Each structure stands twice: as C-alpha cells, then as structure tokens.
C-alpha cells in the first residue's frame, strides 16, 4: 500500500520533471526565435527605413495615406472584371456591401486594440474632446490595450487561435506571392507576346532567387550583390544612386 503510494508519487514527480523540461526547452526556443528576429530586423533597419517604426508617430493624413495605400493594391486591377462577371448593379452592390463590412470590422479591430467596446473618440486625453466624464471610473477600460494582431487572437481564442490565425496569415502572404508571379507573367507576356506566360513566370522566379543566392557568395560577385540592393529596396532614386556608385567603384 505504502509502496504503491510512493511509486505513484515518484511517477508523478518524473512526469512533472519532464513537463518542466519541455517547458524550459520551449522557453529557450521562444527566446532564440526572438533573438533571431531582432538580429534580422536590426540588419534590415540599416538598409531600409521601416515605414511603421514605433519611434516616430504619424499624423491623421499620413495614417489615411498609409492605410489607403495598403488597401489599394494589385486587386484594384481585377475590379472591371468583377463588374463583367456580375453586371453594373451586381458589381456596385458587391463593392459597397463589402466595403461596409470591412469598414465595420476595421473599427472593431481598433476597439479591440483599445480594450473597450465603446467608440475610440471617448478615450481622448484632452478634456475638451472627451465625451465621457473624466473621472477614473468611466475612463477605465474593460481590458488592457492590446498591441498586435496575434495578441488579439491569443486574448480571444487562446494560443490555438493564435496558431490558426498565423497559419491563415502566412498562407495569405504565400498566395499573394503566387498572385504577383501570375500578374507579372501576364504583363510580361503582353509586352513580349512571343514568349509563353509560363516561361516568363519561371524566368521571374529564377531572377528573384538571385539576390537570395548572392548572399551565399563572396564579395567578388558584385553584380549579384547589386541585384540584391536593387530588388530589396526598390526605390527608384536609391537604385539609381547605387547604380552610379557601382559604376564608379567598378
């Protein structure tokens, strides 16, 4: 009886130790991942200015500009085709109804980030704008403010929710790359109709692996390195500057 009890106790202890070990390993892994991200980001920051760096604050119209810029991308090109699929009224109906839904959900995300279901304009710091009485009780938020998209998922649906959302987000990014490849292939085919679309896409894919591969090579592969700088920050003036620099140094 006593013996059995000790056995069970030992078993539980072993199990606990194992759990603790995996937890420690997990922590270590998270820390290493975070280190890696920080390293890459610090490398990147030297090369190109981050648009949304947390240090500088943006004004009202800069925010409108940034957001409109992100919403209006390659998808805009397909809208006449959407009209062709569903007619004048159908297309307008699709655009307006979906814009209403997205407008609503954007505001919802804003309120989730703020941590309170009431409109954000209530939380103005200046007393002349605030619509709520500024005593501490009504200004108190329901939750702590949240900072990022995966954090919302973690708060609302637990870590499984965050993982699922991450998978969907990465799948979307991956499909966006495929969409860009198709789009570039189609446009290149329009300019050079003698070459089939698939060849254009293959050429493009190989071309975009060049900068990746060139990082493996030594400094003597200067042309490839030039492609790297050209393609990683595709700002026209900067590329010209680098081209001039490259010509001088060569």
């Amino acid at each position, binding site marked *: 009886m006593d013996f059995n009890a000790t056995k069970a106790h030992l078993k539980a202890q072993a199990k606990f130790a194992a759990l603790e070990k995996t937890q420690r390993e997990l922590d270590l892994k998270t820390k290493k991942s975070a280190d890696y991200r920080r390293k890459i980001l610090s490398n990147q920051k030297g090369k190109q200015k981050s648009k949304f760096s947390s240090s500088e604050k943006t004004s009202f119209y800069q925010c409108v500009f940034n957001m409109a810029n992100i919403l209006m991308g390659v998808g805009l090109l397909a809208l006449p085709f959407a*009209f*062709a699929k*569903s007619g004048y009224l159908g297309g307008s109906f*699709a655009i307006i109804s*979906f814009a209403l839904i997205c407008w609503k959900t954007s505001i919802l995300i804003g309120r*989730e980030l703020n941590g309170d279901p009431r409109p954000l304009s209530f939380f103005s710091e200046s007393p002349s704008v605030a619509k709520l009485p500024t005593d501490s009780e009504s200004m108190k938020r329901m939750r702590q403010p949240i900072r990022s998209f995966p954090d919302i998922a973690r708060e609302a649906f637990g870590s499984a929710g965050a993982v699922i959302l991450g998978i969907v987000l990465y799948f979307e990014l*991956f499909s966006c*790359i495929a969409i860009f490849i198709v789009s570039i292939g189609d446009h290149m085919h329009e300019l050079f109709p003698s070459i089939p*679309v698939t060849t254009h896409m293959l050429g493009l894919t190989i071309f975009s692996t060049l900068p990746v591969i060139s990082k493996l090579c030594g400094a003597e592969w200067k042309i490839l390195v030039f492609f790297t700088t050209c393609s990683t920050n595709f700002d026209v003036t900067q590329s010209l500057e680098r081209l001039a620099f490259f010509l001088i140094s060569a």
Partner: protein
Amino acid sequence: MIGTIATVCVVLAVVTSFLIEGDVTEEIESQANIDSILETRSHHQLWIGGGLNSAFGLVAYCFSGHAIIPSIYNSMDKPYEFERVVNVTFMIVVAACLTIGLSGYSMFGDFVFDQITLSLNQYSSAVLAMDILTWLMILTAFSKLTLTMFPLAMGFEEIVAPYVSNDSTMLLVSTAIKMILLFGAFAMAIFVPSFSTLCSMVGMICTMIVSVIFPAGAYLRLFWPKLSLVDRIQHCLLVIFGVAMAIVGTVIGTP
C-alpha cells in the same frame, strides 16, 4: 512609394482613356469576328446573379489589409482619431474602386481581361503610354513581391532558428527556405493559372477569415458581457455571413 504612384497612374489611365475613347466593345467585336457581326447583343449587363460569388471574391481580395491595422493604430499620434481615419480611408477607397470598376467595364464590356492594364495595353491607341503603364505595374508587383517575401520567410526562419547553432548554416537554411517558398509559389502560379481565379479564391477564404470572421468573433469573445443585444446579434450575423462566404469560396475554388 512606387506602389502609390502606380495606383494613381492606373486610376487616371482608366478614367482618361474611358473619357477619350468611350465604349469600344463594338470595335473589339468587329475585330474579333467579322462573320457573326449580324447577331448583335449587349456587352453590358445590369445584373448577373450567377457571377456574384466570384465578384465578391475579387472585391474581398481588394479590401484585404486588416493585418496591418495594429501597426497603423500603434503608430498613431492620437489613437482616439482612429475611427475617423478609417471613415476617410474607406470613402477614398470605395470612390477609387467604383471609378475604376465602372469606367473599365463601360469601356470594355465583357471583353475586359482579368487585369484592366492588359485590356488597356491591347486596345488603346496611346501605345507608348500603355507600355509604360505595363512596365510600371511589373515594377510595382516585383517590389511588392520582395516586400511580401520578407515577413513570410521571417516567419519560417523563426521556427527553424532555435535548432540551428551557427550563423553560416543559418544562412544556408534561410536561403533554402526562400528558394522553397519562391518555387512553391511558382508551382501554385502554374497550377492555378488565372489571376482572377487565384484572387477570388484568396479573397473568399483568407480575407473572409482575417477581415470578417476573426475581428467580429474576437469582439464578441472579448466584450460579450458588456455588449447590448443589438450589438450581439449584429456581430453574430457578421460571423455567420463570413463563414457562409468562406464555405462558398472553398466549394467554388476546388472544382
């Protein structure tokens, strides 16, 4: 920056060529088949119910950008102005979308290609300008491709990083990851060759989850006790709508 220029140029190009050249569907038809010119039919429809799902997918892809909202919100000088930012932005975006959609469709009718710049390049009389526009689109798409590649590769590298000890192996591994991703995307591009199919699939499945189901669902989960009955019903309807559209998109996307 180049993306903004390209967007503005495309909108301007579509509107000006519509204003200058007007409806060109009849010319295209007479070019395409001289024999069957006798059977005249309208190339502009008011309402086609059957195409509504793919139209919804394309529009959804156009409006996908909710993942960037936290960065914008956090970068704001006065976060309480965020709702006004959203109002103004959506007014601008809807105006641009309606402009480009309506004028593109009025100009080309159902002869329009799934990317309006291709139609413009093929049928416009201003050849040089349209060639420049096409090159601009290629540049834009290429710069966006490299910009999108960065966070995607980063996500995978972060998963692998704890298992790799030294830097030179890590460089090899990250190169391998990027190569695999690029050629995977290339394989997907070959497998689903049409731009519009791919867009409407992504729009229906990913955008519905990220931009409709997730925000409304999270709002309900986070603030359930504080919400009024109207709010609860409204946001439940949003979630149900999103789920229904995502299922429709999946069913249509995999024939």
